[in-house]
């Protein structure tokens, strides 16, 4: 018991502002960085930028009065990053006590990423973000940022101050990937737990464990292994440089809402979404994409008002297929995208067309 008591005592005594979990003895820093690639770390916050007073606090960190971890703190705690790349940072976190992230923050970040990526001095970009919505934000960037330079999303499941925190190695690996020429032109990437996934296909699958991100259906495309960064595959769907939205500077997008399907799911939620201004609706259907009878009726009503309806499947993997029944019902099928990503693609598609068949093409190609 003695050691654990000592550890707890130490943890309680440690100043809140110091990260506690990173062992000492970093390797000697590279003095001359001129030969290293230039990687920009963009902080959009997240658990990786959060701290708690107690290192056993893994779920209730942050909050009022607890300062976040700034990009400067990361560099201070991880001097090894300077051996991987010449690092500069951009802080896009919301001010403390703001109302939390909105789509406006995503638009702003997209503008910033387009700007940074266009800088010829920059070789790669790392973006930190909270893990809960990072996959859909990364997918948005995958569609609107015009670059073949690596953009790597990273976060952590445990706060920067947590015991066995995954943040430091995740950040270290993300910088390695962003600095790797092999990572170019593969769309926006995601690297946590040593897996390199694509923004389109990665999804958070577990609440708190570190192995949460999976490339649903199609797996990872590479690994950030201790000996090297290695890629086995690249995505075939359109992204970044081949996206027709690349470089676009959106200030707003047509509103699209998501409706879940289940036994007896009422159609009035679909009517309500449209009454509140939705130009598109994503219905997350049961099984391979089935709606309740009441939802089927509601879909017909809103389609008559020009609303485009996309069908996804709540099962979590596999494609919603273009069956004759779906085509007859003028339902855009969401391929294997989860509803939150189908929503983003539909919002972008609706900036170009309200013809459901033309919207279908976006879902076939992106």
């Amino acid at each position: 018991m003695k050691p654990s008591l000592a550890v707890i005592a130490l943890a309680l005594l440690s100043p809140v502002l110091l990260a506690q979990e990173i062992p000492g003895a970093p390797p000697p820093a590279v003095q001359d960085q001129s030969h290293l690639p230039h990687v920009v770390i963009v902080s959009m916050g997240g658990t990786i930028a959060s701290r708690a007073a107690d290192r056993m606090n893994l779920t209730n960190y942050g909050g009022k009065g607890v300062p976040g971890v700034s990009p400067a703190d990361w560099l201070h705690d991880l001097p090894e990053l300077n051996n991987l790349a010449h690092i500069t940072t951009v802080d896009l976190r919301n001010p403390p006590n703001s109302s939390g992230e909105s789509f406006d923050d995503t638009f702003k970040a997209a503008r910033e990423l387009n700007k940074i990526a266009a800088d010829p001095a920059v070789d790669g970009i790392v973006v930190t973000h909270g893990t809960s919505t990072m996959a859909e934000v990364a997918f948005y960037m995958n569609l609107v940022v015009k670059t073949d330079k690596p953009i790597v999303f990273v976060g952590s499941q445990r706060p920067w101050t947590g015991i066995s925190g995954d943040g430091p190695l995740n950040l270290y690996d993300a910088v390695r990937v962003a600095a790797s020429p092999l990572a170019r032109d593969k769309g926006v990437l995601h690297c946590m737990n040593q897996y390199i996934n694509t923004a389109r296909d990665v999804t958070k699958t577990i609440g708190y464990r570190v192995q949460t991100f999976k490339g649903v259906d199609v797996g990872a495309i590479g690994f950030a292994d201790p000996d090297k960064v290695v890629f086995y595959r690249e995505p075939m769907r359109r992204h970044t440089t081949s996206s027709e939205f690349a470089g676009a500077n959106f200030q707003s997008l047509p509103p699209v809402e998501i409706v879940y399907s289940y036994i007896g799911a009422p159609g009035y939620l679909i009517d309500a979404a449209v009454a509140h201004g939705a130009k598109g609706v994503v219905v997350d259907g049961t099984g391979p994409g089935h709606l309740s009878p009441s939802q089927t009726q509601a879909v017909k009503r809103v389609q008559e008002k020009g609303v485009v309806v996309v069908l996804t499947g709540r099962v979590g993997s596999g494609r919603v297929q273009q069956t004759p029944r779906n085509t007859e019902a003028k339902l855009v099928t969401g391929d294997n995208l989860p509803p939150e990503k189908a929503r983003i693609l539909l919002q972008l598609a609706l900036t170009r067309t309200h013809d459901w068949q033309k919207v279908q093409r976006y879902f076939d190609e992106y």
Partner: protein
Amino acid sequence: MVSWCLRRVRESRDSADLAVSHPRFKKNRTLGMAPLLLASCIPLYTGAQALPKVRLFATGGTISGFAANRDMQYGYKAGSIPPAKLLADIPEAQKVADISWEEIAEVGSPGVNTQILLKLAKAVNAWLAQPDSAGAVVSHGTATMEETAYFLNLVIHSKKPVVIVGAMRPFTSISRDGPFNLYNAIRVAADPEAAGNGVMILLNEEIQAARDVTKTNTERVNTFETRDLGPIGFADEDRIVFYRRLLYKHTYQSEFNVDDLTDLPKVDIAYGYQEGGRAAVDAMIADGAKGIVLDDTSPGFAAAVKAGREKGIVFVQSDRKGSGRVLESANSGERGVVTADNLNAQKARMLLRLALTKTNDVKEIQRMFLEY
């Protein structure tokens, strides 16, 4: 039976008369397959003239397994149903391709040997070299399917689709998976979008890359998985869809060629475990092995490797855990042991055999393991 078939590789000339004219088909009609009789009532599609030409290369396996009763899912005889009958069972496939066939062997997975591999590779290469061929399907037992698939991935010199297919339940079983697997394999082999993806394995509507896929379950239909990396596409009903492009070398990019080979260097696999000694490795070398794949580690391997290296034996280090890479450490270089990257032992064996047809140089072989 096997040797008889090996002597006689037969090719069909006209896919339309497969169902009625093949002598062995008639012989096997006594099987009394009610589903087959029903299927044969569906009229053959004869309208389009320009269907892509796909050839089935049959090697046997559970997909052509025969058991006396339809509830027998084990204890069947693999490779009993001739290719003509496999095809006659799915007349729907005639709508997607102009199908012919060759019988390479009629064995189960464990019966596939170097001679069958070479014969299969040469036959598939010859077919794909014909200007009017579209693709190839290989029917195969599932237990070693991934080995044959990876071998073909290294020695087929064509961008045209090559799809390996099998089944977990015999031809005679209720809820057999073979017909739909074969139908989808033909669809993929006929699809120009499937070109350039290397050799693929298709069961259960999932299109898997030969290099990365492995059999993960002894008997369930969802046995083939690609751990970490996943499938590269799907043969869905509405469309065949691909999501991934492969970054390592395969098929048309490969430096390996078996056109003039009649045999391959002997390579064996030594399994690593607690208290494992060197006896197995020594015995393999005494039996003529030119290369050995060490699957994980045994305490006895170090001494065996030292002795083996002096005799010019090439060692490859793989790992029995089933996913992840063997890391490139300075240590492995000093030992003169090649790291297998994330290839499993049975696939590392295939690459090492082909590598040894070119060189004994450990550095050069390491390059091959990093490129293929």
